[in-house]
């Protein structure tokens, strides 16, 4: 098994009396995309800042390739914070050059990297333009380029798709998959669950500063079990639903319905199907895996309810 690029042991962070992170332990493997999930204020940004070396943890240990975090490791990291900006009155090329030089790149390396990434983002023509002349989406691309200039081994992205239109968001997903293929480890904090399902290999779900769910996306979904039924039909299904009050209606249209089948359920599936066949003409019946969104909501609710 490949050596983890990051090992976090019992990381905690406290701001005065406020605990932002509690005893978080996890590992990050090279060439994976990890979805960092959690409701607002869960501690995601704090965790990313600690991983980026901007904030020291209050307690716990962070190892990079088996070594305690040192100055040299900061050069492995590319960090795109959630609230991000650029110098408004300066030219794109100048700013990128500044960021590249700060990352320890030589003048020639910096120029080449800027040219490469602006080309890759389809933004080469913005090199001489001032930032305040660019749209928010364009600025977003420049910021991402600034994060990637030094080819980081660990890429930390906090809500990278906010402000991007669907086409650019899709392009970003493609780019992240390319970087993964190159061996880059990506930690992606996002609220877009379909993106998590689409590109993430693993997830870390944080709630109130604690990791409440972690692991491979497919394994989690399988572990969660198939508890959703999707039925396509002709006719009126309302009388059927009234006979089975334990089922939770997730979505409904004129000829399609999605139901949550609880475990355990006092009703049998056979009874439900018999009843349905009496009232409607069934076209299809499918057991579906839960979506990450559903898992997310379930886990957060369960952990909010527990004392």
């Amino acid at each position, binding site marked *: 098994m490949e050596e983890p690029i990051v090992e976090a042991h019992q990381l905690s962070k406290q701001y005065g009396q406020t605990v932002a992170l509690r005893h978080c332990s996890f590992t990050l493997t090279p060439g994976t995309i990890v979805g960092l999930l959690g409701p607002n204020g869960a501690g995601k940004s704090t965790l990313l800042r600690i991983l980026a070396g*901007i904030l020291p943890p209050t307690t716990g240990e962070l190892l990079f390739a088996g070594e305690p975090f040192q100055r040299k490791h900061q050069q492995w990291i590319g960090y795109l*914070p959630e*609230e*991000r900006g650029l*110098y408004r009155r300066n030219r794109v090329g*100048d700013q990128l050059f500044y960021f590249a030089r*700060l*990352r320890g790149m030589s003048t020639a390396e910096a120029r080449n990297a800027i040219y490469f990434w602006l080309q890759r983002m389809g933004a080469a023509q913005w090199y001489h333009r001032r930032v305040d002349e660019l749209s928010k989406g364009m600025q977003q691309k420049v910021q991402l380029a600034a994060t990637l200039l030094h080819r980081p081994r660990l890429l930390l992205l906090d809500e990278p798709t906010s402000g991007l239109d669907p086409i650019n968001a899709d392009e970003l997903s493609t780019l992240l998959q390319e970087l993964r293929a190159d061996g880059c480890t990506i930690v992606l904090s996002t609220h877009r669950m379909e993106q998590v399902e689409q590109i993430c290999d693993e997830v870390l779900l944080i709630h109130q500063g604690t990791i409440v769910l972690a692991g491979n996306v497919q394994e989690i979904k399988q572990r969660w079990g198939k508890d959703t039924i999707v039925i396509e039909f002709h006719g009126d299904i309302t009388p059927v639903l009234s006979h089975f009050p334990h089922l939770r209606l997730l979505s409904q249209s004129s000829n399609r319905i999605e139901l949550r089948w609880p475990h355990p359920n006092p009703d049998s599936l056979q009874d439900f199907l018999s009843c349905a066949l009496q009232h409607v003409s069934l076209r299809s019946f499918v057991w579906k895996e839960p979506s990450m969104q559903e898992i997310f909501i379930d886990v957060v609710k369960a952990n909010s309810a527990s004392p």
Partner: protein
Amino acid sequence: MSPWSRSTIVAAWEFRRRIQTRGFWLSTLLVPLVPLFFGVVGIILIPLLQSSDSSRTDIALYDATGRLQPNHLPEGVRFSSDSTTWRAWQKELQQGTLRWLIIVTDSSFQQRRVTVLGRQGALSKHLRQELEHFLLSSYALSTRLDSVTTSLLLHGLQWEMQWLHPQKSHAQTALGIAASAIVAALLLSMLASYGSILTDSIVEEKELRIAELLLGAARPIELLWGKVIGLGAVGLFQLLCWIVFVGVLSSLIALPTITAILQLGLLESAKEFQAIADTTLQTARHALLLILACFVMGYLLYAGIFASVGALATDRTQAAPFQAFIIFPLAFPFFLLHFLLEAPESFPSLFLTVFPLTAPVALPLRALAGGINTWEVAASVGCTLALTVLLLWIAGKLYRVGMLHYSGLPTPRQLWQWLRQVG
């Protein structure tokens, strides 16, 4: 990559950013015109002020020959050939009730040289002409020579000025005061401007959320040092631009000014102008060195305070009142200008010179106006350096935590925690 390399990169970035702005070049071009204007006006006014002789009762002529007749004496000028009166006048001159004491002896006519004892300034050309006319007619009467012969004998009469305080004439004192005021005002405005620019620059990075991007690439202290050094370098560069600019302009206007002054007869001779010019050059040289030294000293001292404000404030509106408050001590020496110039040994004067927050302005004020001791300079520099180190240390700590603090101004308790929190 060494920490200093990163600081240098930040410094170079800040330097380039500032000098590429229109505002920088506008202020660089316009600011020198103001002191230059006042300088030219001053050069013209000083001799004019010296020549004012509306009241001549403070001018006396002592006739040691005993042969002169005071009939044609210019109006108001006191006259005596009595040695007792001569001694009384000497006392008056010391006390300041008499401004000029003109002494005419036998050798005055033989050597064509009249001695004038004075407290300050020079005799006006007009008064000199009247006195020459008087001496000429009196000498002609006493020697029974005709006026043509007398005027030939006395042609080219020299007025030898002797001041009670020869090391410092009125012009020199005025130049010193003017230079010290200009230098102090320039330093005050530069320290206030560059301090505010430093705060704004830090707040900008916080407000626009660039700080986190930067903190992911460099340590806070490297960013802070780079910023302080870069903006300080802009200040020094601007000073150098001004020095060159003023130098070029001065050389362009120097010759026409000398010619005009000599033609107007505002000064007796080119020699007298040369004396003033030498003093001006010497004062300018001292002023330049003082400006550079005091700017560096004051900027580094105040950088700690301005940087702390930038790190603590969330936006520019929050920082603005603090910026105005910070520069107040720098303006204080102007309120107590009287003590600094007239009573340099008084306690307020000493305090303002040694107290680090007022020293960057008070020190050049006193040094250029004259009357500062070496130990005072040493004490002032020492105290300022000590406080600078302390303030920059505090700024480093506050910057590290403050740059990621977005929820308004911290409480004093939080501040204390921040100072203790980070190593």
